[in-house]
């Protein structure tokens, strides 16, 4: 009896610990910007190339346009790829990557509605 009680306690502690770590991990995803990138909510506000952002939780993909963007928990969203009109070449360069994940990878779909898919970002264990 005591043996099963101990096993049960270990299971509960282990699950709680994993859950707590996952929540913590979701908050811990960091990205570095590879280009100057405008915030989608306020396109006059930029994250400069080389700057970093933490607490990135979601990669959202628009179902219709296939545009994708990363979003910070409680913060802004930033395009995952951009198109730039280059004045020198007089051409539009499309699909320029804007961010690199520093310590996380794209996980499973965590949510979807009529317009978009949300992929959770999970920390890479070192």
């Amino acid at each position: 009896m005591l043996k099963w009680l101990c096993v049960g306690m270990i299971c509960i502690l282990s699950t709680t610990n994993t859950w707590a770590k996952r929540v913590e991990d979701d908050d811990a995803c960091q990205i570095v910007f590879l280009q100057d990138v405008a915030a989608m909510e306020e396109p006059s506000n930029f994250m400069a190339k080389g700057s970093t952002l933490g607490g990135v939780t979601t990669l959202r993909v628009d179902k219709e346009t296939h545009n994708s963007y990363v979003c910070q928990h409680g913060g802004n969203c930033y395009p995952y790829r951009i198109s730039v009109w280059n004045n020198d070449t007089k051409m539009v360069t499309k699909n320029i990557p804007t961010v690199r994940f520093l310590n996380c990878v794209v996980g499973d779909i965590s949510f979807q509605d009529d317009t978009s898919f949300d992929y959770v970002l999970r920390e890479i264990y070192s």
Partner: protein
Amino acid sequence: MLQEKFYGFAYPAFIRNSSLKKYLVLGLLMNLFYPQSFAQSPSCQAVALQTVALMNNAFFMISAGTIVKDLVIAKITFYQEEPVSYCKQDGTCYPKTIGFVKADNKEENNVPALKLLNCHQGDLLYKNQEYALYHLVPNAQ
């Protein structure tokens, strides 16, 4: 692997929701009040001093040195850090100044982004609780 699927460019989802309505209204207003002052003269032009994003489409940017033509309106949005933008008749807007979070994660605001070349902000055209629109009028010759 998954990331490789994320190609494509078009208007983002958020435009189709709330922002689109705003810019449709803005475009409508600008069509209603389109200043005739440029009808017989070169259009109002500005040069991009930085790489800037369209105010209604953060997925699309123009590089520094690009000349933006056919601007008709200065839009001043209240309660924003970078409030002034210049807009075309179709509702496409470009910020006058931009704010940066730099590589050292320090902030720099009011960095000039767009400079008017042959025009300036004129009279008030329309105002509501969110924003005010001003004519862009040609500079005196």
